[in-house]
C-alpha cells in the first residue's frame, strides 16, 4: 500500500497552498467589487450613509475618549496663555472694541435701512435658521475622503443635508446621522460640490473639492469676474446651502486654476455649528407670501404736504417718514409732481419748497402731518409705468 491506510484516502491529497489562498483572495475581491459598484459616491444621497450609522456611533466612542484629555490639556494651556499674556491681549482688545463699536453702530443703521427696503419691496426674506452646536471628535483628512464625526445627531434634530459652519466659515454638510453622532462631508472632499458666488462681481461658480485644503473654483464665467482676494460666499443656488455663508477667498494656484482659501482653515476645527436648514421648502410658500402684510400695515404713514389736498398726496405712494435716502428722494420727486398738479388747479404760484417761506410745501415729519390732516391710505410701491401723472415741472426736476 503506497499511501496511507484504508481509513485515510485523502491524507496525501494536498491542495497547493498558494493557489488556495489566491482563491480566497479572489472571493474577497469579488465581494468587495460588488460592494464598491453598489455604493457609488458620485451622488451623495440620504441613503448612502444610512448603513453606517451604527458603525459611526461605535467608532466615535474611542475618539471621544481620546479627545477628552487632549481638550483638557488644550484648555489648560489656554488658561496659562491667558494668564501670562493678559495685559498685551487687553490692550489689543480695547482697540478692537473701539473699532467694533463703530462697526456695530453702522451695522445697526444699515440693518434698519435694509429692513425697510425689504418691507417696501415686499421681498421674500429667508427666515432665521436654528443652529445646533457640536464638537468634532474624529477626522478623516486623506486625499480620497474628507469626513468628520461630530457628537450631535438626530436627537438634536440634525438631518441629512444640514450645513455645518464654524465661526470663520463653511465647513461642509451632514451626510450621515445617527442618534448622537453625525458625519460631516467636508467641502474639501472629492464628492463635494458647493455653488458659490464672488461677492465683488456677483459671478457664480462651483467649488469642487479635490481632497486638498484648497478646493477648485470651476465654471467661472465672464472676464475679470474673479480676482485674487475676492470674497467667496455660498450662492444658495440649488437650495442645499443658504445664501451668503462665508466660504473663503479666491487664490490662483500654481497650475493657473482658481482655488478657494477656506476661512474655516484659519483655526483648528473643534466646535462647529449645524444649521438646521434643509432646502427651499423651509421658505414661505405661495400662500404665505399672499398673506404678507401690506406696507401700510408695517410702515408709519407718509409725510403730508401742507398745501396739497389729500387725494393728491395719497397718490404719492411710497414716501416714507424715515428719512432714508432712497425713500426720501422718491418722496420729494413724486410729491413735487403731485403738489404742482394740485397747485395748478388751485393756486398760480408753484409750491416748490422755499427756505424762507413761513409754510413751505416740502414734506414734514409724520407727526406734524398727522396732527394737521387725516392719515391717507398708504399702498405698496407701484411701478411708474402704470401711473403716468408726471407733470412737465416734475420732469424738469428729474
Amino acid at each position: 500500500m503506497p499511501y496511507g491506510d484504508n481509513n485515510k484516502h485523502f491524507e496525501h491529497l494536498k491542495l497547493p497552498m498558494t493557489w488556495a489562498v489566491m482563491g480566497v483572495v479572489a472571493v474577497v475581491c469579488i465581494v468587495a467589487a460588488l460592494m464598491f459598484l453598489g455604493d457609488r459616491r458620485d451622488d451623495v444621497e440620504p441613503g448612502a450613509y444610512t448603513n453606517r450609522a451604527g458603525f459611526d456611533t461605535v467608532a466615535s466612542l474611542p475618539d471621544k475618549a481620546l479627545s477628552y484629555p487632549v481638550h483638557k490639556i488644550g484648555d489648560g494651556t489656554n488658561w496659562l496663555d491667558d494668564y501670562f499674556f493678559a495685559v498685551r491681549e487687553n490692550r489689543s482688545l480695547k482697540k478692537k472694541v473701539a473699532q467694533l463699536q463703530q462697526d456695530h453702530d453702522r451695522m445697526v443703521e444699515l440693518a434698519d435701512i435694509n429692513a425697510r427696503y425689504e418691507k417696501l419691496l415686499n421681498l421674500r426674506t429667508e427666515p432665521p435658521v436654528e443652529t445646533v452646536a457640536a464638537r468634532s471628535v474624529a477626522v478623516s483628512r486623506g486625499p480620497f475622503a474628507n469626513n468628520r464625526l461630530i457628537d450631535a445627531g438626530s436627537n438634536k434634530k440634525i438631518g441629512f443635508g444640514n450645513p455645518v459652519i464654524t465661526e470663520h466659515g463653511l465647513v461642509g454638510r451632514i451626510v450621515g446621522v445617527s442618534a448622537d453622532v453625525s458625519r460631516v462631508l467636508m467641502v474639501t472632499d472629492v464628492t463635494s460640490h458647493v455653488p458659490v458666488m464672488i461677492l465683488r462681481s456677483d459671478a457664480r461658480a462651483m467649488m469642487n473639492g479635490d481632497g486638498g485644503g484648497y478646493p477648485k473654483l470651476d465654471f467661472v464665467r465672464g472676464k475679470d469676474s474673479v480676482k485674487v482676494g475676492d470674497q467667496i460666499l455660498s450662492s444658495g443656488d440649488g437650495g442645499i446651502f443658504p445664501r451668503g455663508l462665508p466660504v473663503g477667498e479666491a487664490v490662483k494656484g500654481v497650475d493657473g486654476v482658481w482655488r478657494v482659501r477656506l476661512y474655516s482653515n484659519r483655526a483648528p476645527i473643534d466646535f462647529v455649528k449645524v444649521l438646521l436648514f434643509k432646502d427651499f421648502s423651509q421658505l414661505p410658500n405661495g400662500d404665505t407670501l399672499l398673506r404678507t402684510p401690506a406696507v401700510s400695515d408695517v410702515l408709519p404713514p407718509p409725510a403730508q404736504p401742507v398745501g396739497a389736498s389729500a387725494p393728491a398726496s395719497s397718490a404719492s405712494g411710497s414716501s416714507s417718514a424715515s428719512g432714508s435716502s432712497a425713500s426720501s428722494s422718491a418722496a420729494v420727486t413724486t410729491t413735487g409732481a403731485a403738489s404742482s398738479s394740485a397747485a395748478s388747479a388751485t393756486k398760480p404760484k408753484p409750491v416748490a419748497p422755499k427756505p424762507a417761506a413761513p409754510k413751505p410745501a416740502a414734506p414734514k415729519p409724520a407727526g406734524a402731518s398727522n396732527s394737521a390732516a387725516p392719515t391717507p391710505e398708504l399702498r405698496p410701491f407701484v411701478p411708474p409705468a402704470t401711473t403716468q401723472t408726471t407733470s412737465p415741472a416734475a420732469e424738469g426736476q428729474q
Partner: protein
Amino acid sequence: MKVPGMLGPKRRGISGAAINRGLRSGMASKIVGPWDWILAPALMSIGLTLALAAAFQPFGFYLPEPVSPLILAFAWPLIRPSYFAPLVLGVLGLFLDMFWGASLGFWTISLMLVYGALVTARTYIVGQEWIVVFGIFLLTEGLFFSLCVLLTLVDTGVWPRLWGVVEQAFATTLLFPFVLYLLEKYVHADVRFQ
C-alpha cells in the same frame, strides 16, 4: 530537564504555548498562532487608525493619516500564505471604508490586490536584504496608491489631489520598520511555516 509544564505562565506569553523539547530556551521552538501574527497586529492597526483620527491639531498641523493595514498586506503574505489572513485583511479594508467614509469596498479591493500579488511573488522576496525588501515595498506602495487614485476616478469622476496622495504615501512609508519587525519575528518563528 525542563518540560512544558515547568515553564510557568510568564514564559508562555499571551498566546501560543511555548514548547521546549529538551533544548535550551533560546533554541526552543514556539507555536505561533493566528493571534500572534494576524489578529494582534490587526487590532493594533485599528487602534493606530483610531488614535490618529482624533480631532487634534498640535501647533495647527494635522496628524498624519497612514494606511496602516498596507503594512500588514505587505508583511502577511511574506510570513506565510494563510487562509485566515486575507479574510482579516478584508475586514480591515471594510473598517477603513466605514471609518474614513469611502465607498464600501474601496480599501478592501486595494489591499487584497496587494496581498494577492505578494502571495504569488513571496518566494522571490523572502530572504532578501532589507534594502531590497524596502524597494519592493515602495514599488508596492506606488501601485497601491495608483489603484486608489484610479478607483476614486472611477467612483467620483474627480482626480484627487496627487500631492495629498504623496503625503499619505510618505506617512505610510514611515511605518516600514514594522514590516521588518514582523518579518524578523515571524518568518522563521515556527517550523510549520517552512
